[in-house]
């Protein structure tokens, strides 16, 4: 060991010995004080904004004081699935999973409570015989609750609800759809399940059954990326494996040197590098944006919505077109806790932002990616933004005409108007936390 090594080692040891964190409770107290101050600032800004609008309006109406009827709630219209046509019920729990049909606790942070809800104890199908929401497009919506999975076939007006095992994970679960089944796979080691279209829930098969970690959509419907961790690797993931929903591994892998950040919206993954956000595929990686201050706002098949910050700390959400690489500035400045979703046609991004006061109400941002405008919709009933949903508390219809949210109820939003509708009347009054869409299977 030469003189330089000796001095480097001594400095390392001294740093290790002498750097002492201030007590954690002091830091937490500082963080709470800061949060309180920020809320107060938001309240003051809001009051000023209200006064700025209200005073001129009061002047215009000549100072008359009138009682103004409250407007309709933003989640006003309720669409009820007709229940009077045909009801088919199949009783019996899943043979491979004795928990099926039992009431199960929601994952940590799931919105609403489960205890007061009627458990789903049998597979039930309602056949209304007419399109739900007037949707005649050939696609289906799946929604997961801690107790059940609902399949909504819009065009024929059919809703099927089946009991599902609760996933008792504090870390939440991924909810992914295939051509003939859906899966729920926990981020940690808690067992998930596979729900085939033509049967009840079973254990996850093959390569899906072990592990945990991120489970992201693959390039084909019914394929998913799962993480593989080398033995003893402290940093975790060293490759992603492409696996079918039948649990069979393919030969396709992506070498990794750490966990992926998010799905890229097109069947591959995003990875954050030292100064770059990479779109990573089996044949290599592409830097889609560089910069030390770069947040991911939303992903979709046509591109990404990112939030770079300039040196003066001004931040604006920018849409990057995957095909052309062009950047499109938007008027939005959103930095969500979890990534949002971009519609398949690339027209809109939907991003959910929790209420600053921690109430149930959340703000849904619908960003028109072509015009760059940001429309906000206040949701009276909204997904719990603190629940780890991995982007699956919202899903677009394949034609981009509807956005579906799992917010206890299932809410459908028209992105062009911002009008939202709650879909009720689904059998088994359960608390939906995740949604996914897929094209209707070929007959």
């Amino acid at each position, binding site marked *: 060991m030469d*003189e*330089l090594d000796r*001095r*480097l*080692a*001594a*400095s*390392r040891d*001294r*740093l*290790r010995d*002498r*750097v*002492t*964190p*201030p007590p*954690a*409770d002091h*830091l*937490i107290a*500082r*963080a709470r004080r*800061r*949060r309180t101050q920020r809320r107060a600032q938001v309240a003051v800004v809001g009051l000023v904004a209200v006064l700025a609008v209200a005073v001129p309006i009061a002047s215009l109406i000549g100072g008359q004081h009138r009682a103004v009827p409250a407007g309709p709630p933003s989640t006003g219209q309720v669409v009820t699935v007709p229940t009077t046509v045909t009801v088919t019920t199949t009783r019996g729990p899943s043979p491979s999973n004795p928990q099926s049909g039992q009431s199960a606790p929601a994952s940590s*942070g799931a919105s609403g409570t489960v205890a007061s809800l009627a458990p789903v104890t049998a597979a039930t199908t309602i056949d209304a015989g007419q399109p739900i929401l007037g949707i005649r497009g050939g696609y289906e919506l799946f929604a997961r609750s801690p107790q059940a999975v609902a399949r909504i076939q819009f065009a024929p007006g059919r809703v099927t609800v089946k009991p599902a095992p609760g996933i008792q994970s504090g*870390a*939440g679960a991924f909810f992914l759809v295939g051509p003939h089944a859906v899966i729920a796979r926990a*981020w940690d080691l808690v067992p998930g399940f596979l729900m085939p279209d033509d049967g009840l829930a079973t254990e996850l098969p093959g390569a899906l059954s072990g592990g945990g*970690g*991120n489970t992201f959509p693959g390039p084909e419907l019914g394929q998913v990326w799962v993480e593989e961790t080398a033995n003893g690797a402290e*940093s*975790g*993931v060293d490759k992603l494996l492409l696996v079918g929903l039948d649990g069979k591994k393919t030969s396709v892998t992506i070498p990794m*040197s*750490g*966990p992926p950040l998010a799905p890229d919206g097109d069947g591959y993954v995003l990875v*954050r*590098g*030292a*100064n*770059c956000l990479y779109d990573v595929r089996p044949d290599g990686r592409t830097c889609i944006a560089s910069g*030390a*201050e770069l947040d991911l706002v939303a992903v979709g098949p046509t591109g990404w919505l990112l939030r770079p910050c300039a*040196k003066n*700390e001004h931040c604006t959400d920018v849409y990057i077109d995957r095909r052309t690489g062009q950047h499109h500035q938007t008027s939005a400045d959103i930095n969500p*806790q*979890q990534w949002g979703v971009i519609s398949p046609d690339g027209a809109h991004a939907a991003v959910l932002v929790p209420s600053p006061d921690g109430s149930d109400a959340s703000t849904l941002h619908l960003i028109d990616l072509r015009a760059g405008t940001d429309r906000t919709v206040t949701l009276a009933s909204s997904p719990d*933004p*603190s*629940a*780890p949903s*991995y982007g699956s508390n919202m899903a677009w219809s394949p034609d981009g005409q509807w956005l579906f949210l799992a917010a206890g109820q299932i809410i459908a939003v028209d992105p062009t108007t911002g009008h939202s509708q709650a879909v009720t009347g689904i059998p088994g009054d359960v608390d939906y936390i995740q949604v996914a869409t897929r094209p209707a299977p070929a007959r």
Partner: protein
Amino acid sequence: MDDAWFAQLYEASYRRLVVIVLSVSSDVGVAEEVVQEAFLRAYARQSRLRTVHNPEAWVCTVALNIARRRRRRHGIAMRALLRRAGDPTRAERPDGSIVVDDELMDAIAALPDGQREAVVLHYLADLPLAEVAVRTGVAEGTVKSRLARARSTMQQALQDRRPHGVTNADLLQEAEDHG
């Protein structure tokens, strides 16, 4: 919020992150401020933090971003080091704050960015070469060559003696005159 989970993360990661941030700030006091700021922001976004695979890496990214921004704002790290002038003994200061080998830190601070990051992450934060490569976004071979060049530069710098009578205060003044 689960403060116990957060406190555990904070206590387990703090030292490591301070040293890693030294790759950008080159000043222990600044690095500690930066890491505390990163944890304050992490607390406000705890729900997001809990969804990521490696929360420490998330806080580390935030801390490095803050450090880089401060560095841009306040000038090069060398100047921050020079502000510690009046410390000719290179021993522990009366206030008990940490003094590392300042000559060595000067030499590290003067390295180009890539070499400085490699030296701090590998030699001071004790990260293996493969992890340094991941964190700096370069191949492992590049890390090795950066370390070799950095060692050569540092050895030369440590051998060079300052002219007798020139103090850190003088150098600071000179830097500000030119800055």
